[in-house]
């Protein structure tokens, strides 16, 4: 369940090769952090996992079967942008997923069901720190608030695979720590596999079970078109984190604090699997 | 085949206003009831559309001029019979020159008119009368509702049109009527025509039409308060008032008396007129693209005489129903 296998995947945009010969497999319930230089194809990779784009070559399997060729409720996403519906209020944005899933005819809930859903949604909004903004429209939110709203919207669905594209990039450390906690809790409670793009290695080590680095091995300007990025490092975070089990390790998340001077040592060290290690990966659970 | 529901179309023009009045005041229904049929009367603002609808078979009878009857439904293969000869134009159509009182000075000018309409015919007759031909002028097709405005522009120096536009234009400074339909009396005839086949199968329809027409016409020419009220109503319906309408009537030779209409229809002049007209239409190529001569379409005159191809009679004058009215046999 939820295992993702990527086989010989290439992606090209017109003449440009973006991703080159990707081979990897992601264990069920893994929490993968995807890092790599800006523009190397991380978003493109997520889009392919989502089913929004197709590999130019190669194939992607979900639990051994080819990935459904279209996005679906099994895979949730938080985009770098365009992630919320401008015509719904904050509350409406969080409620819509459940409404769409439950009411196949009108996509709306009424009466008691609606009130219960609204309560759940408010609780989720409070968790991401948006309590009090329920009736605003996305255009009235700040950048970070929109990002949190998108996250809340995706989390409400508890998808089997959750794809996050720099979901915490616009958040201050305080809120970010709160949301890290929320993410951990959900990842432990809900049977989901998470793939998260981030530029913050501290964050990667705090949350992930495994870190994948994409890199363009030939990156002189004149080579950029002809060579794509590929998987350059594949690191298992140590000590292993296992979904559903709290480890000593997880206890050391710094408390939500805003002491401007406090920077603790990053938790987690790495077991380096080598730059050329494209071999299939041993599942963690 | 015999039927009991009939559709009649009429368009807004001085000589046809009685049809609207008759429909409004229940005269139509009364006569229809008398013959056990139903007649639906539709008012058209657009004359051509009314003829088109008739030609296409959506209407059983329609009001039109003798020339349009020949060139449109008849040339279009719809066998058409003139049931009622309502009136002929005696001044309702006119050639108007700007800043010139002599018809001969039309030579070399642009002439604005509705191409291939009775105005075009009137122009041809007018040019004939002063020894000119259409080659001496340039015809510009102009839509009738816009004639009055068009006349006020500098580009327009000669125009042929009909009432009520003629009287509007005549009132403008510099306008001179140099030729009008009273110079060719009896040639531009306003008719109520019906589909020949329908009429043949349903003589009651023809009778009802005649009954309606002569009752209404009698009312409108009467010098009584009722007559005045009828003329006022018809004036209002045509967008003017009683005085305006009576002025237009003055330029119309209305046959309120069926006997006069019968006499006019039976007179040999009608044959001469139709010959003029079919020659004109043939010249303009309006009797069909491949027509070898003006004889392609047969025109049956009262009494059975046929002008043109007897195997292709498409336009007929029939005095039967007017005669019935004259005899008081309706």
């Amino acid at each position, binding site marked *: 369940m939820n295992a993702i296998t990527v086989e010989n995947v290439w992606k090209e945009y017109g003449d440009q090769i973006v991703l080159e010969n990707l081979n990897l497999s992601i264990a069920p319930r893994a929490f993968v952090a995807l890092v790599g230089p800006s523009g190397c194809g991380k978003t493109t990779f997520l889009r392919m996992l*989502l089913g*929004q784009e197709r590999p130019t070559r190669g194939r992607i399997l979900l639990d051994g079967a080819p990935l459904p060729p*279209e*996005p*679906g*409720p099994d895979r*949730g*996403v938080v*985009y770098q942008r*365009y*992630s919320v*519906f*401008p*015509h*719904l209020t904050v509350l409406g944005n969080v409620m*819509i*997923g459940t*409404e*769409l*899933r439950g009411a*196949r005819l*009108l*996509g*709306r809930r009424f009466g008691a069901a609606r009130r219960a859903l609204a309560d759940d949604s408010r609780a989720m909004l409070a968790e991401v720190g948006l309590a009090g903004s329920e009736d605003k*429209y996305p*255009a009235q939110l700040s950048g970070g608030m929109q990002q949190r709203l998108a996250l809340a919207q*995706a989390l409400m*669905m508890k*998808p089997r695979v959750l794809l996050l594209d720099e979901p915490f990039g616009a958040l201050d450390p305080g809120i970010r720590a709160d949301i890290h906690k929320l993410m951990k809790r959900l990842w432990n409670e809900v049977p989901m596999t998470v793939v998260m793009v981030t530029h913050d290695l501290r964050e990667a080590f705090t949350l992930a079970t495994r870190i994948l680095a994409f890199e363009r091995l030939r990156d002189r300007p004149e080579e950029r078109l002809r060579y794509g990025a590929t998987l350059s490092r594949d690191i298992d975070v140590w000590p292993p984190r296992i979904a559903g089990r709290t480890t000593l390790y997880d206890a050391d998340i710094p408390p939500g604090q805003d002491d401007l001077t406090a920077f603790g040592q990053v938790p987690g060290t790495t077991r380096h699997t080598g730059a050329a290690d494209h071999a299939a990966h041993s599942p963690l659970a | 085949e015999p039927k009991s529901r009939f559709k009649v179309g009429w368009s*807004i023009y001085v000589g046809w206003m009685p049809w609207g009045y008759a429909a*409004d005041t229940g005269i139509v229904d009364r006569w229809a009831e008398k013959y056990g049929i139903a007649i639906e009367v*539709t*008012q*058209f*603002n*657009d004359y051509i*559309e009314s003829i*088109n*609808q008739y030609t*296409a*078979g*959506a209407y059983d009878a329609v009001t039109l001029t003798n020339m349009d009857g020949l060139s449109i439904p008849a040339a279009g293969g719809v066998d058409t019979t003139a049931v009622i000869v309502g009136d002929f134009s005696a001044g309702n159509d006119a050639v108007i020159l700007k800043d010139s009182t002599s018809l001969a000075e039309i030579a070399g000018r642009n002439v604005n008119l509705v191409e291939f309409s009775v105005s075009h015919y009137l122009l041809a007759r007018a040019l004939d009368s002063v020894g000119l031909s259409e080659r001496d002028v340039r015809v510009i097709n102009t839509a*009738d*509702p*816009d*004639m*009055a*405005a068009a006349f*006020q522009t500098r580009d327009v120096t000669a125009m042929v049109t009909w009432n*009520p536009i003629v009287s*509007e234009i005549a*009132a*403008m400074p510099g306008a001179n009527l140099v030729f009008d339909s009273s110079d060719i009396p009896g040639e531009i005839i306003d008719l109520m025509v019906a589909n020949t086949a329908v009429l043949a199968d349903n003589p009651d329809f023809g009778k009802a039409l005649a009954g309606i027409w002569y009752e209404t016409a009698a009312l409108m020419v009467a010098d009584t308060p009722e007559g005045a009220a009828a003329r*006022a*109503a018809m004036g*209002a*319906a*045509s*967008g*003017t008032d009683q005085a305006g309408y009576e002025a237009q009537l003055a330029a119309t030779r209305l046959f309120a008396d069926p006997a006069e209409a019968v006499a006019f229809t039976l007179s040999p002049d009608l044959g001469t007129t139709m010959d003029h007209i079919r020659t004109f239409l043939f010249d303009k190529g309006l009797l069909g693209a491949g027509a070898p001569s003006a004889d392609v379409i047969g025109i049956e005159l009262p009494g059975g005489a046929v002008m043109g191809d007897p195997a292709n009679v498409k336009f007929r004058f029939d005095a039967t129903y007017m005669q019935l009215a004259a005899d008081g046999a309706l």
Partner: protein
Amino acid sequence: MRLINRHPGRAARLFLGSLPFLILVVAYLVASAARLADNPGDKLLPALSSFAQAIETMALTPDRRTGAYLLWSDTWASLTRLWAGLGIATAITLVMGLAIGVLPVMRALLAPVVAFASMVPPLALLPILFIALGLGETSKIALIVIGVTPFLIRDLSLAAAALPREMIVKAETLSASTWLIALRVVLPQVMPRLLDSLRLQLGPAFLFLIAAEAISADSGLGYRIFLVRRYLSMDIIFPYVAWITLLAVAMDLGLGGLRRLMFPWWGLEGRR
């Protein structure tokens, strides 16, 4: 300060906005006075008093023939046709425009024929319309529908297709079916645009209404204008045209207000 940043105040806006109208009115009065001085019987640009009289006759005096107050009965006749036409056009547009905008299959099937239909000059095919539908109300309403629907459909489907792909994908990950995407994601986001393009089509709708009424009718604003046109009765035509324009402008403002009321989020996003 740059001109682009100079925002006139309320009063200035009111003044500026009415200026062109004032200029038009003054230009009319001058031209009219000049023509009437030339020829007191001139009917092209009547004096204001003639308008007053014509309005009095049309709006406040019962017609001798029918006993109706012509302006009001004409208005009513025309508006019912117009609204019926626009209502039907909107309904068709919602179905077809959404289908074309949302479903690639429907786009392949219908987009070409709709583009084609929007280019056919409907007035040239009137005889067929009348034969098919008769000369009653149906054909008048149909002409309005035929005249405005292709535009509404094209506009709506363009707007639907211009939604960011990410928005649709997002909805799919939230378990929306095609139907629910159309209903809850696309429809509400294109509705403001539909209202706007309906506003833009008010002018054409009136045009087709007038054209239909000019062919065959016995009441209606277009009928009246057509009827008195051959007498060059500009004293009636001008007030009727002004009245039509006012009606259209009122509907325009009404639809604009409706849009603001129903879609408060529209216009928040970075728009000025």
